[in-house]
């Protein structure tokens, strides 16, 4: 018998529950997609589950017209937030992993704790602070919030990574006369490119998906996509099919990142559980 022939094994029955779960995970995606591609005249809650008769872009066009400013706000906020917090995390992680100064092991858990706090507990002071420094309402304030409250997770990810770099490499560099900055720029920074990808993706995703900071720190002009979409969903005027199309537009950037760079995304996820 050919080894390539498919041979039924009883354990393949275990695929059934997995296929059932597949349906569970795909149902919301299915509704989002089919509704988005229906023409206006065939949209009805009654035929929610039916496939579209053809491919129409009415819903996407209308959703985009309504959400375009906030999509751009999100992009303009997320890119600097992700880049700045990655560099900050890299520098902190480097110092905390390598050069143990007195008190480092007290400071580290204190930084970590910041990763888990409910942000409600800093929200009132944060809003007051942003008002006083005149950064309330706009995107720079939101970027600042994401960078600062991103310090714990970015520091942690980089510290765990730098702790795995063999001491010998750094020793060798120092013997060759490299100081702290040179060791960082010429040795650790190039080595940590994968960690940069992990942290950039992580910060990109969490800032893009954030709602709490955005809803309290920005005015309607600066609303990122999550706040605008939620506002759209709460309005009676905008039809549900446009909301579905808008949801897909709001999810698309992070979904694309997940599809193309899923491996790195998963590593960030695990770092969030302190598992390095």
């Amino acid at each position, binding site marked *: 018998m050919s080894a390539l022939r498919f041979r039924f094994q009883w*354990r393949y029955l*275990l*695929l059934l*529950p*997995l296929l059932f*779960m*597949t349906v569970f*995970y795909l149902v*919301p995606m299915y509704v*989002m997609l089919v509704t988005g591609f229906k023409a206006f005249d065939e949209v009805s*809650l*009654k035929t929610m*589950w039916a496939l579209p008769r053809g491919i129409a872009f009415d819903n996407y066009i209308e959703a985009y017209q309504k959400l375009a400013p906030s999509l751009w706000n999100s992009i303009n906020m997320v890119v600097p937030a992700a880049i700045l917090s990655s560099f*900050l995390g890299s*520098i902190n992680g*480097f*110092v905390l992993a390598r050069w143990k*100064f007195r008190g480092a092991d007290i*400071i*580290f*858990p*204190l*930084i*970590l*704790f*910041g990763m*888990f*706090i*409910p942000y*409600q*507990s*800093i*929200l*009132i*002071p944060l809003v*007051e602070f942003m008002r006083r420094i005149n950064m309330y309402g706009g995107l720079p304030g939101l970027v600042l919030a994401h960078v600062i*409250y991103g*310090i714990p997770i970015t520091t942690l990810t980089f510290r765990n990574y730098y702790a795995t770099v063999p001491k010998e490499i750094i020793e060798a560099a120092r013997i060759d006369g490299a*100081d702290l*900055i040179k060791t960082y720029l010429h040795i650790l920074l190039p080595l940590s490119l994968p960690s940069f990808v992990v942290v950039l993706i992580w910060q990109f995703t969490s800032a893009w*998906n954030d*709602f709490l900071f955005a809803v*309290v720190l920005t005015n309607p002009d600066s609303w990122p996509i999550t706040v605008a*979409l*939620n506002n759209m*969903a709460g309005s009676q005027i905008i039809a549900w099919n446009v*909301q*579905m199309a808008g*949801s897909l537009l*709001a*999810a698309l950037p992070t*979904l694309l*990142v*997940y599809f193309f760079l899923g491996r790195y995304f*998963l590593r960030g996820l*695990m770092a*969030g*559980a*302190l*598992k390095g």
Partner: protein
Amino acid sequence: MLKFKNRDTLLSIALVTPSIVAVAIFIYGFIAWSVRVSLSQWKGLLPDYTWVGLKNYIELFRDARFQVDIRNTIIFTVVFVGGSLLLGLLMAILLDQNLPGETFFRNLFLFPMAISFIVTGVVWRWLMNPATGSRISGLNQLFDSLGLDFLINRWHTTPFWGIAAIALAAIWQMSGYTMAMYLGGLRSISDELREAARVDGASEWQIYQHIILPLLSPITLSAMIILGHISLKVFDLIVAIAGKQLPLDVPAIYMWQVTFDGYFFGKGAAISVLLLVVVSLLVIPYIRYNLKNEADV
């Protein structure tokens, strides 16, 4: 040589100082500031730090709305954490059986993690449309056409248990995460261990019961803490599915409304401090445990 080393130490301190100062101010300073606000009578647009002691806290515990919040948080946490753990463990065990399509399933179960609670909420809001009769739609309509009428329900508009429907959407979003954690744990259990048990005559079921599940318990604990603290903070998912309705109220929504719609900053701060205390009770032992383990390795 010594001078050179000192310069590096100074530089190290200079490099991390901005971040440490930022964390000190924006996390610990702000927490202290919130605590101070929670002990004040500040109500209105202008700050008012007149000391009222624990008045805001005492009033909260007498407040009927806060009782609803506590009840909803408990139901949500039990359903969400329990459901995610069970589903995650089941999927991880299935994916660990060397079945065809493993990578596909794994990636599929994890993709909801990449999208926001707001998007999830908006989509589930329409799936969980509670209308019945001629206006039936969403999942209820699907159940109806599949002959699964007994599954038709009022979702988040069900009295008392409505919050459990929100937890279902949260399970959809987060169970892939527990699956990934458990799968990582299963992969780290050596095949020799299972082989040895088989040689000793243990059945597959006994291997899971006596060897694998006990080895996975640290992961269960981690996942419980991670998911537990997420469920205490749940906010955007509820807002996107149901808006700000009293029957689905939780502390985070109450805090938001009382502070930013009602301008009762003293009370809002008290809610946020209580949230922080409960989250800390979960998270501080967890951080200590993790750091200690790390030091032991």
